[in-house]
């Protein structure tokens, strides 16, 4: 079959318009080409015939039921998965928010509580109480105390406060307030910074 490629090119619509016209003209006059063309067309027609199969409609009817079952199941599964994922994500977010909120609130209320305690001790000139509070907080949780003093903007290097503490409360010298009286301002700064740095964030 010497014209096979040309015929297939024509059938595949790969020819340019002029080429196509020339081929059609040749086809009507060239007996050999026309015969080859018919032969190839018959072959292709046969395979098309094979594709013309009658299907059993019962298969499709039963298949439709299966498909709907599967589609429902998939939808339900997807909905379940999405709802689980959404609930878990929401729970995690709420827990994280509550955790941080709780931590902040705890610190905040603790600060307020201790601050109020301290303030009331200073204003009521109750030296033993002040002594107790300072001692308790200085020794048990001094980093926290450092944080508190920062919150209350109490500066240990403040000579006025030192004087007030000494005069009003007649504090014994051997307590931790010796820091305020005997140590230089630079040392106080150093200690203060140390306290602040010791705080565990």
């Amino acid at each position, binding site marked *: 079959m010497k014209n*096979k490629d040309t015929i297939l090119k024509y059938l595949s619509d*790969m020819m340019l318009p002029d080429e196509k016209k020339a081929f059609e003209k040749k086809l009507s006059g060239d007996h050999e080409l026309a015969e080859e063309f018919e032969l190839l067309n018959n072959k292709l027609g046969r395979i*098309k015939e094979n594709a013309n*199969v009658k299907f*059993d409609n019962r298969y*499709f009817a039963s298949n439709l039921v299966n*498909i709907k079952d599967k589609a429902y199941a998939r939808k339900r599964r997807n909905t379940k998965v999405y709802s689980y994922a959404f609930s878990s994500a929401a729970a995690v977010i709420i827990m994280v928010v509550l955790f941080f909120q709780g931590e902040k609130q705890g610190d905040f209320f603790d600060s307020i509580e201790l601050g109020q305690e301290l303030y009331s001790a200073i204003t009521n000139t109750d030296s033993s109480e002040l002594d107790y509070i300072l001692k308790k907080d200085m020794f048990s949780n001094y980093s926290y105390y450092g944080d508190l003093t920062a919150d209350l903007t109490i500066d240990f290097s403040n000579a006025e406060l030192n004087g007030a503490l000494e005069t009003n409360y007649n504090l014994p010298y051997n307590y931790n307030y010796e820091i305020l009286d005997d140590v230089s301002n630079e040392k106080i700064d150093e200690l203060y910074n140390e306290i602040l740095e010791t705080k565990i964030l």
Partner: protein
Amino acid sequence: MIFEREKILIEEFLAGSELAFNELARKYQPVIYAHCRRMLGNHMDADEVTQEVLIVLYNKLNTFQFKSSLSTWIYRVTTTRSLNFIKKKSLRKFLFLDDDEARVLHSGDDVANDYENKTRLENLDKVLQKIPVKQREVFILRHFEELTYEEISEITGKSTGGLKANYFHALKKVTELMEDEK
């Protein structure tokens, strides 16, 4: 007129009518199956992909935007799923996970209801499975479904020039195979 009817059916289905979906499925199920069967070459695989395509149709019809005809959209889904199936199958074969013998045994559960139809299907499967996948895809859509190159291009996303070349090679291969059969 046909498109109008389909549009109405789609809208009815999206509004909750199962009957509308049944009508669409009844119309397209044989088309989908035939395309899958020609692409995949046996009943079991074609059945699996047909079900998959119809499930997609059921679940994703709300995403259909009427930019093309429904049949084009369905052909696109069917072609993509069939190609994916072929890729997965090749991979399974490569990893020795695919049991081809079992599939051949089960191919007796066929959709052809008589001997003549069954033989025709088997002959067609034999020929088509010998053509490379890309050429097969175009050959099926052009030769059996009689779609234009523009329509095929819309379905496959390939240029018409490339499609023509693939179709040419497919025709060449098919005619050669039919000569061998003689």
